[in-house]
């Protein structure tokens, strides 16, 4: 082995070590920093092992990658598995980039530089909404590029035939992402191989193919033909990074073409010489490069990482898993409020049995919309809306939103199970079976589906299933009309139809609190005895104190219901108001410091419009 060979082997080992370090850091970042299972809260990988379902994927260019990514994501069972997979994807990108650079520069040695696209890709995946299909399509195209630039036939006619076949094939399996292959290979032929006709042909053919396909044989829009799987079609955060990755490769070719020009070559060598820090050997260059790339990535993610989004997704996951206390704890850290967030908070509070004692410890900015979402927010999360109505005992409304979820999110196992269960409980066993048969086609759900099909075939056993028992005990016995609006009338009706529906009762009380309907609360006071509450919940007591300020309120009743400590608390609140002579603006800072979690504060400052039906100066 010559000295130069030894140096080369040693340099290769250095690069392997560098890659090992960078991708270990990448893996740890995914595993410990990103918790990639949260991706599944934003993306819904619906996948069925069914011919009709799979056929759909083959009908559009790039559909195969969509199907493959949906299939792979069905195996994303833990943070560890996902981290390993995503790290592997990033490594593939680095590997193919390195191989491509080697061909481009006639086996010149590279370190650090080839890691840039991989690191950017890791960054994009850490944003949760970046599609896996884009990454897979990208890898396939890079792999093909590496193949073709090594083994492209010499004969021109054969060359063109192979090019056409490869381009059409890649367009079909990867969609618009094939442009990465087409453009880079075209540039390679032009700049590196100096085969101008072939290069131009590839560039022209690649740029026209999506247009021709979308206007003749394939039923997709022009935009979809060019962009599907090339970059995210929906707006995502840091979309520019997604553009930078393909641009990186084009830029390399542009630089490569400039370096062929004498004057430019000299200055380029000066720059690269400077960047290489002249006398540093390859090992130290790798060390510096590794540090640079890891630090750069940490800095980039630190600046851009959206912690609030992560909290939202974590909250969703806790709600899904029934971890109510964790959900409440996470919700306290969320800084961006929405009706959906408050809907989740209130549901978690109800599930943990503290809705009427704790709901105003969160500033209920959205009033009743944060309790029961309006139509637009229900549409934002149809599956969760279906869950909510299921819990409330409104089986048809739960079905309605499960169908909306099926339309918007596809046949995920949760939605198929919900639809099957709902139809089964309604006695529509044939409709139920259809959903269970589809559930059977979801990887890992065969046994669950078989059990449900068996249950569906013997309805007498249904009463022994806990979920069915629950819903059957709350279901309505008489029809009523649902208009996609929110009103207390629905909850009242639900409670009238089934007085033992505790969720309907607590939600009705919460609704009255949020809308300032104190008479409604007073009318339902006997129900607290019916539901065997050990004491009247805190916020009901606080509401009663306000209600008692009306002249016709029975004060004796109040003494039995409101605890002395709440009464004292209310006196303190009034004293502060009196101190500021009833000027609520001046009193605000002091009241906020001491009473921000009270119902009185909510009515006075958070949603004062809720007080409109009540006395204006009831606090003084």
């Amino acid at each position, binding site marked *: 082995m010559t000295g130069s060979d030894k140096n080369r082997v040693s340099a290769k080992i250095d690069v392997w070590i560098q890659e090992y370090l960078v991708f270990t850091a990448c893996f740890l970042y995914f595993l410990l920093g990103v918790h990639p299972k949260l991706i599944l809260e934003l993306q819904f990988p619906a996948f069925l092992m069914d011919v009709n379902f799979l056929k759909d994927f083959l009908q559009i260019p790039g559909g195969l990658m969509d199907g493959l990514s949906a299939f792979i994501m069905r195996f994303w069972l833990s943070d560890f598995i996902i981290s390993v997979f995503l790290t592997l994807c990033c490594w593939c990108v680095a590997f193919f980039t390195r191989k491509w650079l080697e061909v481009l520069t006639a086996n010149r040695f590279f370190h650090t530089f080839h890691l840039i696209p991989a690191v950017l890709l890791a960054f994009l995946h850490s944003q949760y909404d970046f599609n896996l299909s884009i990454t897979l399509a990208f890898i396939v195209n890079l792999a093909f590029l590496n193949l073709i630039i090594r083994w492209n036939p010499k004969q021109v006619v054969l060359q063109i035939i192979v090019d056409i076949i490869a381009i059409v094939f890649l367009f079909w399996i990867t969609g618009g992402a094939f442009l990465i292959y087409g453009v880079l290979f075209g540039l390679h032929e032009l700049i590196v191989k100096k085969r101008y006709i072939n290069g131009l042909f590839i560039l022209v053919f690649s740029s026209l193919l999506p247009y021709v396909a979308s206007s*003749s044989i394939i*039923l997709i829009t022009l935009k979809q033909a060019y962009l599907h799987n090339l970059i995210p079609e929906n707006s995502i955060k840091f979309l520019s990074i997604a553009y930078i990755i393909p641009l990186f490769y084009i830029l390399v070719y542009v630089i490569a073409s400039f370096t062929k020009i004498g004057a430019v070559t000299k200055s380029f060598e000066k720059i690269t010489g400077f960047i290489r820090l002249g006398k540093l050997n390859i090992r130290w260059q790798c060390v510096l490069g590794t540090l640079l790339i890891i630090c750069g990535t940490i800095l980039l993610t630190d600046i851009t990482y959206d912690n609030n989004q992560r909290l939202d997704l974590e909250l969703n996951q806790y709600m899904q898993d029934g971890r109510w206390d964790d959900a409440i704890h996470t919700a306290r850290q969320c800084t961006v409020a929405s009706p959906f967030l408050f809907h989740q908070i209130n549901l978690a509070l109800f599930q943990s049995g503290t809705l009427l004692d704790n709901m105003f410890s969160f500033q209920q900015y959205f009033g009743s919309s944060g309790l029961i979402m309006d139509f637009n927010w229900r549409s934002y999360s149809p599956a969760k809306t279906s869950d909510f109505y299921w819990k409330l005992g409104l*089986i048809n409304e739960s079905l309605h939103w499960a169908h909306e979820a099926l*339309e918007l999110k596809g046949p995920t196992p949760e939605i198929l199970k919900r639809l099957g269960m709902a139809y089964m409980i309604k006695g*529509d066993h044939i*409709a139920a079976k259809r959903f269970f*048969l589809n559930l059977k086609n979801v990887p890992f759900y065969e046994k669950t589906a078989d059990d449900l099909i068996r249950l569906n075939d013997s309805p007498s056993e249904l009463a022994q299933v806990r979920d069915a028992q629950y819903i059957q005990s709350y279901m309505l016995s008489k029809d009523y009309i*649902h208009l996609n609006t929110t*009103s207390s009338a629905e909850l009242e009706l639900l409670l009238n139809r089934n007085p033992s529906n505790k969720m309907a009762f607590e939600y009705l009380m919460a609704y009255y609190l949020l809308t300032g309907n104190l008479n409604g609360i007073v009318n339902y006071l006997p129900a607290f005895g019916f539901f065997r509450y050990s004491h009247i919940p805190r916020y009901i007591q606080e509401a009663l104190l306000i209600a008692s300020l009306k002249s016709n309120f029975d004060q004796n009743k109040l003494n039995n219901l409101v605890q002395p400590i709440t009464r004292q608390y209310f006196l303190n609140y009034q004293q502060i108001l009196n101190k500021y002579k009833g000027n609520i603006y001046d009193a605000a800072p002091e009241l906020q410091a001491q009473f921000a979690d009270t119902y009185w504060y909510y009515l006075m400052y958070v949603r004062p419009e809720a007080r409109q039906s009540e006395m204006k100066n009831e606090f003084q």
Partner: protein
Amino acid sequence: MNFNNYIKIAGYWFLLISIVFFCVGCVTQKNIPDAKPAGRLPGIQPDYSGIVIPPNIAPLNFSIKETGEDFVVRIHSKNGEPIQIENNSGLIQIPMKQWKRLVSENPGEELIVDIYLKNQAGQWISFNPIVNKIAQESMDGYLSFRRFKPLFNLWKKMGIFQRCLENFDEKPILLNRLTQDNCMNCHTFWQNETDKWLLHLRGGPGTAMLLVTDGKARRVNTKTKFSGVAAYSAWHPSGELVAFSVSKLLLFHHEMGEDRDVLDRSSDIYVYDINTNTITTTPQISDPHRMEIWPAWSPDGTYLYFCSAPELESYADSSRSGEVALNKIKYDLMRIAYDPLKHSWGNLETVISSSDIGLSITEPRVSPDGRFVLFTAASNSQFPIYIQSADLYVLEVKTNRWKKLELNSDKADSFHSWSSNGRWIVFSSKREDGLFTKPYFSYFDTSGHAAKPFVLPQENPLSYETSLEIYNAPEFTKEPVHISPQDLAKAAFSEQDALNAKFDSTSVAEKNTNKTNSAKQVRVPSK
């Protein structure tokens, strides 16, 4: 000869013998020597027993719903070679060529399907033969329909497709992924032809009627000061006029039984003249005190049939202020005379009053010979597809006598279309599970009797079991739609050829234009 040559020759012989064995295996039919009679019909899915089929239908593939280890199916008729299929799955996919030959050679004859199975004990069982009849008359060769998942408030993926009924070829006419994911509906063909037809797009900038004439699509905006976005449409036999309804519909949900329901808050009928690009109406079909919907022309063009009910306010529930008694909303079947030469309207008649039939009448369709009017009748509402009691009825025009057809099920049967020869009808039925509509065909004889219906055959008969999509608004056509989905999508957004229809205001001198506003005040009941 060296060793390699021996190997080569042995290889050729092996190949030859394999081919011979394969061919012999294909032509040999299994004999069923001592089959024990089961004494009943076999269970098959879809139910293709006791039906009348057209001589041009695709193979009626089915799955045997019996437990067995081996299955033999023999399909035969009076003329021609019988078809025999043997397998151990019970999935019967009939070879296309053999089926075509057998069915086309036996119009008017019986088509018999014998099914045998070998049970676990090795005993062959024979079932009573399935006897179907092959009609003399063919049905139109194509079926257009809208396919999507059961629709509630939101939709994402939707398309209008055409299926060749003589084989299993299915192609999209238009997919909503080409038209900004909007809603598309009410594809309506002139006399089952495909060179003149229309459909409606809703939602987004493409909202309009998409009119196809002579292979060219144009967007027609029917929204004027008086008329609105077109919904249910009907071509006049002249091919120059389109009657359409403009409705304010409200989707709402029940908490018991069928979830979805639709309330018609206000409807009127208008007529669009495609030659002059004008819209007209008459107070008799756009009466401010009534809701008129579902237009249908008689084949000679001298009558416009439609459904009509008193305005929504008249259903106000006296016990609940401002609310409507939904179950009382019932539509009458009406018709109005029309002079196609003078373009003038004649007398308005009530053909069947909802009080006489006790049901709400919708979706009238006149047979091509003008003898019958096929309609849907349900307990209430103008949207029968969400009413499980919806059934098909037929009216004999000459005698004005109507009857409920024998083909109905206990689930919603609605939205029907006539084959151009009047001998076949297709309709949407939820009979299988009450949720997923599928197209069913029935032979309609000259005396007004409809035979037992059968579902649209599929290459894989099991595909219905797991399909999560519904087939909606089936319409027969004689030929395939030739215009490409891309051209239709292009026309949907093209400003160049788009037309803004003009309204002939002289036709509405008596029309109360405040009608729709007053209807907004009415609420559906919440209790």
